[in-house]
């Protein structure tokens, strides 16, 4: 049944190269430089992935005889991996921007304390202080990260989806072999997440 579903999905994806190219054309007009680069290149890679996928389908159904399925399969996964890496880069970039924004909001909200109270804890000569300062900063950053993710469910879903998706080409290309069970679970999770974004369009990350 898995083979049947895979072949049928390849059939359904027959038009997706053109869609990905159109998406790349739209992405060229974004104002933000990093987003523009990431999304355009990622859509171009997706277009190449779909083109390789279409060729694989033609080979599997017998339209093209004597096709080196392994070679084309590897090619398609390489394009897919690169597209996912760029998507993740974009997610991390947006996360960074939002965290910066949130940190600035927090800084303006915190009421200014008298100077001696601010510097009192760090000036105490206790040897335990250096061990506490680093985790404190780390904890603050972590808290900031979790707050930003909690307030932006589309970004969180997209990040989770791309993280799950990336294990598939990593396993197939042999870069980081996990078992087929893990790959199946990751694929299932990312599919469920994308179904959720289709049912609730507000959960889709824009642009």
């Amino acid at each position, binding site marked *: *049944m898995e083979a*049947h*579903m895979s*072949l*049928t999905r390849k*059939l*359904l994806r*027959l*038009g997706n190269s053109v869609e990905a190219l159109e998406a790349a054309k739209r992405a060229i007009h974004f104002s933000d430089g990093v987003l523009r680069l990431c999304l355009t290149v990622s859509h171009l890679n997706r277009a190449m992935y779909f083109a390789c996928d279409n060729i694989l389908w033609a080979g599997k*159904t*017998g*339209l093209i005889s004597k096709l080196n399925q392994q070679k084309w399969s590897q090619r398609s996964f390489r394009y897919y991996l690169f597209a996912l890496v760029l998507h993740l880069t974009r997610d991390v970039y947006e996360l960074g921007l939002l965290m910066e924004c949130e940190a600035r909001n927090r800084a303006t909200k915190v009421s200014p304390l008298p100077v001696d109270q601010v510097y009192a804890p760090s000036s105490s000569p206790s040897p335990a202080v250096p061990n506490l300062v680093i985790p404190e900063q780390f904890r603050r950053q972590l808290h900031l990260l979790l707050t930003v993710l909690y307030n932006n469910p589309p970004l969180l879903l997209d990040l989770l989806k791309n993280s799950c998706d990336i294990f598939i080409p990593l396993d197939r290309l042999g870069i980081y072999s996990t078992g087929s069970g893990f790959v199946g679970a990751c694929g299932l999770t990312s599919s469920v997440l994308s179904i959720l974004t*289709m*049912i609730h369009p507000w959960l889709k990350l824009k642009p």
Partner: protein
Amino acid sequence: MAALINFTNQSQGRDRIFRATQYACALSVYLLRNKERPDLVEKLKSLEVSMSTGRKLFRLGNTINSIEAAKRTMQLSDRVLCLCLTVANINRALYFACDNVLWARSVGLIRDINKERWSLNASRCYFLSIVMSLTRDVYIVSQLMVQKVRDKRFRQKMDQHLSESPEIAEPIIPQLDAFLFLLLESLRSQPAVALDTLKNICDLFIPLDKLGLYQSNAGVVGFCGLVSSVIGILTLAQPKLRITP
């Protein structure tokens, strides 16, 4: 439920293109049967089979779509339309249900079912749904014809048409000539109805052949399937050409 339907409708356009490809392959295989091109025929056959099995998978949710459509058509005010469309939709829902069972059998999920019997039942339901759709088309066309006959301007036009023919050829049965003129004018005024009637007539040949009621050959079935798929693509691309309700 609305979200599920919106979700599945996105693949409707692709399904129609694949159906057109499937029947084009069937027609081509029939046309090439006497020529010495076994490799091409083999490729076309395998493409047709892969399109057909792929489409069965896409149709997995269509039973629910058809039941929802039947619920909507039950609320139509015109009783004849209500009856025809509701029965057509219920039969389509049954056809899709049989189709899903056949898909499960072909994939290997279910093993002990009588494939021939289920295939026959699917064809019967499909046949009934097309007959009901054609009945609805005939009803709408007859209503249009009655409307036209009552229109004074159209009657003048028809009288003009009937009186100018004696110079060209004597009409053997003047009433038949008048009827045909009325029919063609009605169909021309409503292209959506004309297209739907043609589509249903073409579609009818497929189950007629499968059920053995009117054995045509694979070429006719392929050609009719192709024409009806192309009309389906046209009505999807141009919503004005889609019959309502």
